[in-house]
């Protein structure tokens, strides 16, 4: 078969491009440590969250020197903690910390999304979404529900405050 040299070059470039795409994704996973949200958070009884050790009193907990756990209950139409617009505490963590969010729902499917970042998970009643995030710089992020959950879905929002380490007061505004 007689293949033109330009066609050979194009076939080669296309193959190299595919390998390049796969290589960058592999680097992201192995080198940069990007992870997917899976079902490792386990299950929970959505009707008895008040009795649950993690979600009975949701909020921020320090579990290590720079490690924090944030337990969040999403309900129609707020995040507790998170929805400071509705009187709940904002989620507040210090900068230079590793934060693991445990998010569950007490009613319907919600979303837990920090817009502009890849912090984004579905929140399913009965399931705990577990996601670990590193916050390096002080900043204020929004928090949104991105799964339609009812008539007031568009107002279901919150705030994640990453404050300088010396201004951190425990996370619950206490």
């Amino acid at each position, binding site marked *: 078969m*007689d293949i*033109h*040299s*330009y066609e050979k*070059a*194009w076939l080669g*470039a296309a193959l190299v*491009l595919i390998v*390049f*795409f796969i290589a*960058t994704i592999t680097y*992201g*996973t192995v080198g*940069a*440590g*990007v*992870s*997917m*949200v899976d079902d490792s958070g386990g299950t929970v009884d959505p009707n008895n969250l008040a009795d649950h050790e993690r979600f009975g009193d949701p909020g921020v907990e320090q579990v290590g020197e720079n490690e924090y756990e944030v337990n969040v209950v999403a309900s129609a139409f707020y995040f507790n903690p998170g929805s400071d617009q509705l009187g709940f505490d904002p989620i507040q963590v210090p900068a230079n910390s*590793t934060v693991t969010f445990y998010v569950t729902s007490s009613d319907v499917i919600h979303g837990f999304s*920090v817009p*502009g*970042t*890849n*912090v*984004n998970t579905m929140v399913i009643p009965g399931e705990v979404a577990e*996601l*670990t*995030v*590193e*916050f*390096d710089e002080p*900043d204020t*992020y929004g928090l949104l529900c991105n799964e339609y959950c009812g008539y007031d879905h568009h107002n279901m929002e919150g705030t994640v405050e990453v404050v300088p380490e010396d201004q951190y007061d425990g996370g619950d505004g206490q």
Partner: protein
Amino acid sequence: MSQSTDQHGAPPDSVIERELTHDEFDPIGTAVLITLYFLILVGMWLFTYFVEFLGNGPTVVGVIG
């Protein structure tokens, strides 16, 4: 229009100005244009993945499995 080709679909000999062999066909302009598009594509992938995705604020991290 209908007179420019004969009944076998080939142009009449008088229309052919120069005949090229397979290897003499050399569309260098097209090759350069596609190379340019290719480089733009690679550049946009690098920007999207490394700057927008990995570089933009907190990223979900962890260990696979």
